[in-house]
């Protein structure tokens, strides 16, 4: 014990250079780990072993450095044990310092690669329980916030929504607007994945109201705008969606968060495509601001726009096959592009069918270059949805198109008049009965 204490006072001064900061020498790492073992030996409720304030500071610094180091080098288990074993030590620190320490550790754990969502959820639940025992409500709420985000990734929506409801009640009482805005934003995302657009929109409005009351950090502002854009796109209001995505893009671009900025840029191009303005896509991409984001994503969107301009279904399908990562990973893009495909398909069919009153399905499929069965199915669905008046004749393998007829109202009117006359006769009959009785 005495040896360790003396080593603690010989803490080497570290460089302030950021790039070197993390290149710890092996002995420094060992030193930190020794300090950590010492910290772990501290039992939460006892007073032994005694620690001086200098030791406390050193251990604190050690924990910070180690968490960064582990996170960088993906030592999952070591970081996990550190989080669990340093809990005793944290009781020696002031609440704010221990809160910050715990938050940093959990943050670095979650930033590591290779963490499965299940493990992360377990760790967060563990931390929440500890916080509840120690009555650290602020810390608990921020860990619960991250837990909700993990639930959403894991698609366990019921748990996420349950936790959200609990937290919102507490946060409203405490009036913690920053965390409230984040939680409402997560709620909006959850409802969006559950396809409940009304609730998603209302959650987003509450998030905005909470965020408006405080200084909103650019990240949060960007995330709010992105979510508004997504919801507007779901309601097919692509013009508003485009403006929201543009705001998000500006926000992320100016605050220097380059990796996050590609998503709103992609969505901007997507809105232009859904608005049927493929020329704008070109102009946006060639814009100076966006040039630094050029890459496979932008290529993919450019290809989609050109296939839209040519109204060619073949090209569209080949684009989808060529860029599977960029176009099939994001569920929002997938759903909108599927809608686009269906609309293009229908428009093409309409154009082809227009000059005909009776045409073979084989001929249509040859013109549009899509197999007969697919064309036939699509046509029967269109007829069912009453998108055009026609009928399929499988015996002859052809489609018959009717002209839209003017419905002749005379017969229905005649029927109505007869029904009314019936009623008149009824009442006359009744009156006549009365008269004959009196006579």
């Amino acid at each position: 014990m005495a040896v360790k204490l003396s080593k603690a006072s010989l803490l080497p001064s570290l460089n302030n250079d950021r790039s070197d900061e993390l290149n710890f020498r092996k002995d420094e790492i060992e030193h930190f780990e020794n300090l950590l073992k010492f910290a772990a030996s501290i039992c939460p409720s006892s007073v032994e072993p005694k620690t001086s304030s200098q030791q406390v500071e050193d251990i604190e610094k050690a924990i910070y450095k180690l968490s960064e180091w582990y996170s960088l080098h993906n030592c999952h288990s070591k970081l996990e044990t550190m989080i669990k074993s340093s809990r005793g030590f944290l009781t020696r620190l002031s609440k704010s310092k221990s809160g910050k320490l715990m938050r940093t550790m959990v943050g670095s754990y979650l930033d590591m690669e290779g963490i499965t969502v299940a493990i992360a959820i377990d760790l967060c639940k563990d931390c929440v329980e500890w916080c509840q025992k120690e009555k650290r409500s602020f810390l608990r709420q921020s860990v619960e916030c991250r837990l909700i985000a993990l639930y959403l990734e894991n698609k366990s929506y019921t748990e996420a929504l349950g936790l959200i409801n609990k937290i919102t009640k507490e946060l409203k009482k405490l009036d913690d607007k920053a965390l409230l805005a984040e939680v409402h934003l997560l709620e909006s995302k959850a409802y969006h994945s559950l396809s409940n657009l009304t609730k998603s929109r209302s959650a987003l409005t509450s998030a905005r109201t909470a965020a408006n009351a405080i200084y909103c950090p650019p990240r949060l502002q960007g995330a709010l705008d992105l979510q508004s854009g997504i919801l507007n796109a779901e309601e097919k209001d692509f013009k508003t969606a485009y403006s929201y995505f543009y705001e998000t893009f500006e926000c992320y671009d100016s605050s220097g968060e380059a990796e996050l900025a590609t998503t709103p840029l992609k969505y901007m191009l997507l809105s232009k495509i859904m608005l049927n303005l493929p020329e704008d896509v070109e102009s946006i991409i060639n814009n100076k601001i966006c040039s630094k984001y050029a890459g496979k994503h932008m290529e993919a969107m450019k290809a989609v726009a050109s296939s839209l301009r040519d109204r060619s279904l073949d090209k569209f399908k080949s684009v989808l096959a060529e860029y599977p990562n960029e176009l099939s990973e994001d569920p929002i893009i997938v759903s909108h592009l599927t809608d686009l495909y269906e609309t293009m398909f229908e428009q093409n069919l309409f154009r082809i069918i227009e000059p005909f009153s009776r045409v073979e399905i084989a001929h249509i499929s040859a013109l549009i270059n899509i197999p007969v069965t697919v064309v036939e199915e699509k046509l029967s669905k269109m007829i069912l949805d009453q998108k055009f008046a026609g009928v399929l004749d499988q015996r002859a393998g052809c489609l018959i198109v009717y002209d839209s007829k003017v419905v002749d109202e005379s017969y229905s009117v005649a029927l109505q008049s007869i029904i009314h006359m019936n009623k008149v006769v009824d009442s006359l009959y009744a009156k006549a009965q009365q008269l004959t009785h009196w006579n």
Partner: protein
Amino acid sequence: MPIENLEDQGLEKNPDLELAHYKFLLTLPEYRNDRFVHQKITEAIKKDDMAPWYELIIKDAGWKKDANFLKTIQAKNAEEIKKLDAAIEDAEKNLGEMEVREAYLKKAEYYSRIGDKENAVTTFRQTYDKTVSLGHRLDIIFHLIRIGLFFMDHDLITRNIEKAKTLIEEGGDWDRRNRLKVYQGAYCMAVRDFKTAANLFLDTVSTFTSYELMDYKAFVRYTVYTSIISLPRNQLRDKVVKGSEILEVLHSEPFVKDYLFSLYNCQYSEFFNNLAEVETILRKDYFLNPHYRYYIREMKISAYTQLLESYRSLTLQYMAEAFGVTVEFIDSELSTFIAAGRLHCKIDRVGGIVETNRPDLKNAQFNSVVKQGDLLLTRVQKLSRVINI
């Protein structure tokens, strides 16, 4: 809204319709000796001393009568009734109107909890006479409807629903109005009126608080089943397929989602598979068991009609493939339905073709004009004879 637990806003589960469901399961051959069902029922009987219901079960499900057990719980019932009667007398002598009414209400609730229908109904009637406020009267009526649903006493249910409707017209609040809609919908389902049931359920999807009848997932399931069979395609799309609340619950009920979307997206072979499963589910359901055959037949007819609607003629082979069955099966099914006049088509077995012959609207209208006109003329003639006396 209903994902937050609004169960505290629901009324108390008295009588517990789950027990009615379990009792009904006992009547099905495969559940007759099922241990889990037996256990649930015995637990409930023991917990609430349900002597009269126990006797009913012995009679209906053929259980062995445990005389000692029956005597003990009957004794407990009698004791409790004496206590409640004493409370009533005390309230009548010493306390005010409110306390009298509450004492009667407690007695009536006790009767319904032990499963004694006649006494419960009579006591509720007495309580009703003593109740003044509209809200409390409606609560009593809801309780009576629940008892009716528990014992499937159609007369009791219809009378009380009528009474409830008149009371609500006089001035019921929205909460009770919506609750009545749910109760009415449940009863309509039990009498095969699927169209009304679907409309009522769809109205109340966003304001469901009647957890004493069924939980929210079961409610959405019933809504989907009744809407699929009764709503035309465009209404089905707007209200069910695009309804946000329903979509939310369907995420956690993948089977119902498949069933709905397989019909809507014209994937007929999957639809037939799902329909077979739905048949087994409906057979075990308390409300829908008497109607499951009708339901399945109607769903088959609507699937065939949907397919035939866009075709003037189609090959039997194509139909068989679309539904994932053999040509013979399609042939026999179609023949039954065509002979019953439910499908408007004709089978050309030699050429292997089915031709649709949709009744032309204009011809039908012409025929009906002629018929109605004839009837009208006869009546006018009769009238003229009467007047010319």
